[in-house]
């Protein structure tokens, strides 16, 4: 058995309350408990976080680059989803 058996984990850190967890990087750990502790030591040693998630990298399903067009392009032609699509007369407030 070699340390290849220490799987890779993705680390997500909430930098302060009120913000979402964001991807900080990855690391190796034998199990979830150590992944959390290693993440705390590595990614928050300058006080960068108040909460950490760790997820086995193998558990992440990613969209493929070939799906990029079907996945992401349709949303590009729906400008009516964005507030700047609408013209409002000058002087109207709180909109």
């Amino acid at each position, binding site marked *: 058995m070699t340390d290849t058996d220490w799987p890779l984990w*993705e680390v997500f850190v909430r930098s302060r309350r009120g913000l979402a967890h964001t991807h900080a990087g*990855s690391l190796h750990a034998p199990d979830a408990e150590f992944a959390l502790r290693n993440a705390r030591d590595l990614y928050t040693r*300058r006080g960068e976080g108040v909460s950490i998630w760790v997820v086995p990298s193998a558990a992440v399903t990613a969209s493929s680059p070939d799906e990029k067009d079907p996945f992401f392009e349709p949303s590009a032609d729906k400008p009516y989803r964005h507030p700047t699509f609408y013209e409002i007369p000058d002087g109207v407030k709180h909109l």
Partner: protein
Amino acid sequence: MATAAAHQTDTAGEDTATGGYERAFDAAVAAEERVEPRDWMPDAYRATLVRQMAQHAHSEIIGMQPEANWITRAPSLRRKAILMAKVQDEAGHGLYLYSAAETLGTSRDELLDKLHSGRQKYSSIFNYPTLTWADVGAIGWLVDGAAITNQVPLCRCSYGPYARAMVRICKEESFHQRQGYELLLALSRGTPEQHAMAQDAVDRWWWPSLMMFGPPDDESAHSAQSMTWKIKRHSNDELRQRFVDICVPQAASLGLTLPDPELRWNEERQRHDFGPIDWAEFRAVLKGNGPCNEQRLSQRRRAHEDGAWVREAAAAYAAKRTGRAEGERA
């Protein structure tokens, strides 16, 4: 993201479509778009990045050794804390960089194997010994200074995970260079013995630091392609010149001299001229003939081998627990 599934690039339609992919890739890179792990990329781009990130990561962890050499002898508790934090950062930076390399489908084990067997290099600068306490300062000021000059442009590297790792590293490293400078300043302004210690360290580290930028542009094997791919942004000579120009006034403020009789301001170029670098020494150290090559590599191998039973124990424990949990569910 460094998932096993995520690094696999689709190879379907390779023969017919590669040309099209490559044109799209080149155009995206030229337009300053970032390349991400699952994007199609030329094999040579991938290989260049893996090699460079691995070498960078190896340099961080081998680079712990010359400084760790002084942790147990740091002359004040304040300096001891600073040095420990700095060496710890280097381990952390190695980790960030190995993770970035792993997004391209290699594993840290594989990269460490290549380091341990001498198939991948680390920065030759770490094959020089730290003989006195002042060397810790000279490494911070000159070696980290040269590294930062090299690394700041890498924050805009075309490969996203590498660029992101470098942003984090550059942010954290800002204290490394300053602590080295401050350490040397204290020595330079201290007793005559301390001043001499500082000057001696600068004399020994100056030229190897200039060599850190790599061979001159006309001899640099990978430079042109790396520039086109925006893995590299400035030529070796350009960065070296920038570094010299930054260091000259800093040395004056330290009250120390740089060991180069030909170093002088060139009014016409608006830059400093400096003497010839001993590239024969550079090549000898690179080939394994530096003062510490054998020592650095064997310490690294020993740490890895001595730690094998620990890594195995943790893996075995995790496997047992997964087994138990499954047993309970069944």
